[in-house]
């Protein structure tokens, strides 16, 4: 049942990325390019729209347990360190270069040719490298 819910959540997530056009790197870059004269605010509405249901959901986690699991995630970590800031800065660099972040990078796979697959493969490589670095570091 949890696997079916995960599949459904992934599908709804992918549908949201598709109808909002966040699968299209040109749309994302048009938001990030604040100096280009053709600034496109769509991404801000996507983020705002996504935060609303999640803010409600977090409130509901204050009592009880998940329907299909034993516990909700613990409180958010409060550690602000170089790894967080450096990682976020690296991510921003890659995102600004191509216009793809991890969700759209996977959602776009069936909609584009080799560039999307090459990006996803490189991203997986980067993640495995970071997993390796994290394992060594801890």
């Amino acid at each position, binding site marked *: 049942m949890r696997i079916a*819910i995960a*599949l*459904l*959540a*992934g*599908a*709804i*997530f*992918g*549908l*949201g*990325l*598709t*109808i*909002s*056009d966040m699968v*299209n790197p040109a749309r994302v870059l*048009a938001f*990030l390019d604040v100096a280009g004269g053709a600034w496109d605010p769509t*991404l801000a509405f*996507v*983020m705002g*729209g*996504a935060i*609303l249901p*999640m*803010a409600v959901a977090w409130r509901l986690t204050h009592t009880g347990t*998940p329907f299909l*699991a034993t516990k909700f995630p613990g409180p958010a970590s*409060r550690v602000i360190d170089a*790894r*967080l800031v450096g*990682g*976020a*800065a*690296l*991510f*921003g*660099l890659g*995102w*600004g*270069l191509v216009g*793809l972040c*991890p*969700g759209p*990078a*996977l959602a*776009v796979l*069936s*909609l584009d040719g080799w560039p999307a697959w090459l*990006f*996803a493969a*490189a*991203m*997986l*490589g*980067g*993640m495995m490298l*970071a997993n390796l670095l*994290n394992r060594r570091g801890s």
Partner: protein
Amino acid sequence: MIFNLTDVLMGLAGGLLIGAAAALLLLANGKIAGISGIVSRTVRQASNDRPETIAFIAGLIGAPALYGLLVAPPDISITQNPALIVAGGIIVGLGTVLGNGCTSGHGVCGVSRLSMRSIIAVCVFMAVAVLTTVFLRPVVGG
């Protein structure tokens, strides 16, 4: 600035779907819908929820494919420069795992619980992405 009402409303509707999907995963399975976390856990050796993360990824890839077949494939415009694509992909993978989250994990799931860590991460990656798009992208020829 371009303000196209249809684009903005579709963005809002898509965003609500993304948030609803993340809420479903949280309230039913007790999991955070951060895509970089889900993908990196799937390729990690010691993963204890791999069937769930693989199912989520299958839905994430499959639903847009179905949409493309049944409704209309959206126009996708992406750089054709292979070096830029490889560099961007590696940096995104590395950065999201080291920084523990991306647009969905920090941006949607973290900001919505007012996590200071996530708010700082979002400010940093947004600022760097804007600077990169404005100043660096024209130079490297995206």
